[in-house]
């Protein structure tokens, strides 16, 4: 099937492109990029006023499938991804059963092939059952198609176990994605140790509980040579540790979530909004600032959402009892456009690097670029569209967003995966 996308502003720093032009697509790949293109037959779409970029990737998503389909499943999660402008996502393995062997991996990938236009990759567990003791069947999962390994949701407590896991994963040329949380320091912490824990009478989750494991895992990466990716970085000090590791030339990358960039513990008040309960917790205003600086200087490689759906009945509990997490797929790009691109803090080029190129590099996936022969995974954005985040307006099965009520500028209108639309004029394509 042939497709001609006309007159969008096409931006891709990988090929130094930022101009209004046409892109033709044939057999799932870009055929030509240029002015005044035409195709003999097929579909022509006028994208005047829109911005067209390489398809975005979110490398931190909880699809909850298998086992917790009442929160989200592969079909609804993939739809939420398409609505948010993502052409590919990486599913985390803390499902039920845990994705810790080849058969569960095959379930996820086969199911995705049936119900999802969005490309779905999956991470496998580092340790069996996420228990933090014995290695999961890492080789078996690589054969089944896993692209990275993580015990996300928990830190690996035992340094010896983490060392063995990294030594082993390295043999398969894969990366370890690390959720850094030292349980002996964090305990039952539910909000940042500081202002929020003091004023709300809640157990504190100290920054050091995260930073201590970041430091440990960087040291283990140095020892083992295993590529390491720090998940959902939240603090100035954590960013500094990654900055130093990169300066040393270590194979270390990291991600930050929109909620840790744009929200902090001051947003928590005596209304105990459980949509603001996440792990790691919202930190301080100073951390927001330091994370944005780390985005600018290249310390932070990518923006990932940690999309963590939970059912309404689970979140409408006492704060200490509610589960951790906020959804993020449908709001991430608009938040970055509104808060970072529109005010000129980062460029479109940097946004594309952060949300399209970097995650593919980190995961060892084929890059997508606006040039002939590249896979036609494309995200098209109306940069002027203003919209309000509303609870009833998610295609995710859950609505636990930290950003309900936010007025955002810039929204995805169309998404193409391998030349086929997963989103058209803001509407999902089945």
């Amino acid at each position, binding site marked *: 099937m042939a497709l001609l996308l006309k007159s969008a502003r096409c931006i891709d720093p990988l090929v130094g492109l930022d101009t209004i032009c046409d892109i033709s697509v044939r057999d799932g790949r870009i055929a030509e990029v240029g002015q005044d293109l035409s195709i003999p037959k097929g579909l022509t779409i006028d994208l005047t006023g829109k911005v067209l970029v390489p398809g975005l990737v979110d490398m931190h998503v909880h699809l909850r499938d298998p086992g917790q389909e009442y929160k989200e499943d592969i079909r609804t999660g993939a739809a939420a991804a398409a609505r948010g402008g993502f052409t590919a996502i990486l599913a985390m393995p803390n499902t039920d059963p845990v994705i810790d062997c080849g058969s569960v991996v095959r379930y996820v990938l086969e199911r995705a092939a049936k119900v999802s236009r969005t490309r779905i990759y999956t991470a496998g567990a580092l340790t069996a059952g996420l228990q933090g003791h014995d290695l999961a069947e890492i080789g078996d999962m690589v054969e089944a198609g896993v692209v990275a390994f993580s015990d996300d949701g928990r830190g690996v407590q035992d340094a010896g176990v983490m060392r063995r896991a990294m030594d082993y994963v390295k043999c398969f040329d894969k990366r370890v994605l690390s959720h850094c949380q030292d349980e002996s320091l964090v*305990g*039952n912490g539910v909000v940042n140790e500081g*202002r929020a824990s003091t004023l709300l009478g809640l157990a504190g989750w100290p920054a050091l509980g995260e930073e201590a494991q970041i430091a440990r895992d960087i040291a283990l990466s140095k020892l083992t040579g295993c590529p390491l990716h720090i998940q959902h970085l939240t603090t100035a000090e954590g960013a500094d540790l990654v900055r130093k590791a990169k300066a040393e030339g270590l194979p270390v990358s990291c991600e930050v979530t929109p909620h840790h960039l744009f929200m902090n513990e001051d947003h928590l008040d*005596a209304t105990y909004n459980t949509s603001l309960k996440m792990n790691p917790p919202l930190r301080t205003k100073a951390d927001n600032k330091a994370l944005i600086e780390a985005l600018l200087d290249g310390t932070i490689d990518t923006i990932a959402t940690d999309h963590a759906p939970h059912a309404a009945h689970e979140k409408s*509990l006492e*704060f200490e009892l509610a589960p951790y997490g906020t959804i993020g797929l449908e709001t991430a790009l608009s938040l970055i456009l509104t808060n970072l691109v529109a005010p000129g803090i980062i460029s479109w080029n940097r946004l594309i690097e952060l949300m399209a190129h970097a995650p593919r590099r980190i995961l060892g996936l084929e890059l997508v670029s606006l040039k002939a022969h590249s896979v036609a995974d494309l995200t098209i954005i109306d940069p002027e569209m203003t919209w309000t985040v509303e609870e009833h307006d998610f295609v995710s099965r859950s609505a636990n967003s930290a950003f309900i009520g936010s007025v955002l500028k810039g929204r995805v209108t169309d998404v193409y995966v391998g030349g086929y639309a997963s989103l058209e004029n803001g509407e999902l394509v089945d």
Partner: protein
Amino acid sequence: MGTLATEHLLNIEDLDVAGINAVLDTARSFKEVNERAIKKLPTLRGRTIINLFLEPSTRTRTSFEIAAKRLSADAINMSPSASSTVKGESLVDTAKTLDAMDCDLLVIRHRYAGAPYIMSQNMRAHIINAGDGKHQHPTQALLDLFTIRERFGGFSGLKVGIVGDIAHSRVFGSLAPALRLLGADVTAIAPATLLPACPELLGANHCHKLDEILGELDVVYLLRIQKERIEQSPFPSLREYARLYGIDRGRLERMKRDAILMHPGPVNRGVELTSEAADTAANLLLYQVNAGVAIRMALMYLLLGGDRDGSLA
């Protein structure tokens, strides 16, 4: 229609200085009523007050129950074993169920912070927070303020030391900001392992050595060491805690002549206070308990629509 600026008492910050004074003044009138042979007033006849205590409590629940009955309200007590929460009902559903029974005022004690706010969002009744997790216990703060005001006539310039498990204390969470608002100087005195991350946000200075500051204090307020809540031993032993932070004969003698000892009860004899010190302080500790009934009567009366000037017509 209430006569306080607030519909509910969820946090001590719901009351400004005028509000606190209205509660204390009204409580003083009720305290006089409580000293009569016939203690019952018809004020809240026909009103329904539910005491929902989702965490074990005898003293506070009894105090609220007596307060409601003295005002002729119909008081119903609900405790964990009697409530649906043991059957897995969510707090929101509990609130909606109680709301459907048309109660006028709900008193709630819960082990989780923010529970009173959840009730206020799902019920038409006025809500009084009788202690939520490690967050707030505003009626305890008010009865403490009442006791201090009766002793010193006011708060301005008073030096108050609050000693003990500050980090896990909802009493501190309510009392310290109120004392600061009223012009007192508050110091949290505890080892670092028992202090919250930022005590200054609750209006308090802090220090680790009781003996360095004891001689300057007008009020020495001892928090109960809640052995059942302490996790990962924040101090080596109760014996060591008592040596460093307990009030014994020697420390009693080093206190200012007119300084007072307070404690929210129940006292762990031999921990916060030696038996001797507890007996010395007993009158005031019982005064706090006595004032508690009057304070809770005052709140029920003011929230449910008494006269603004506090007269008991």
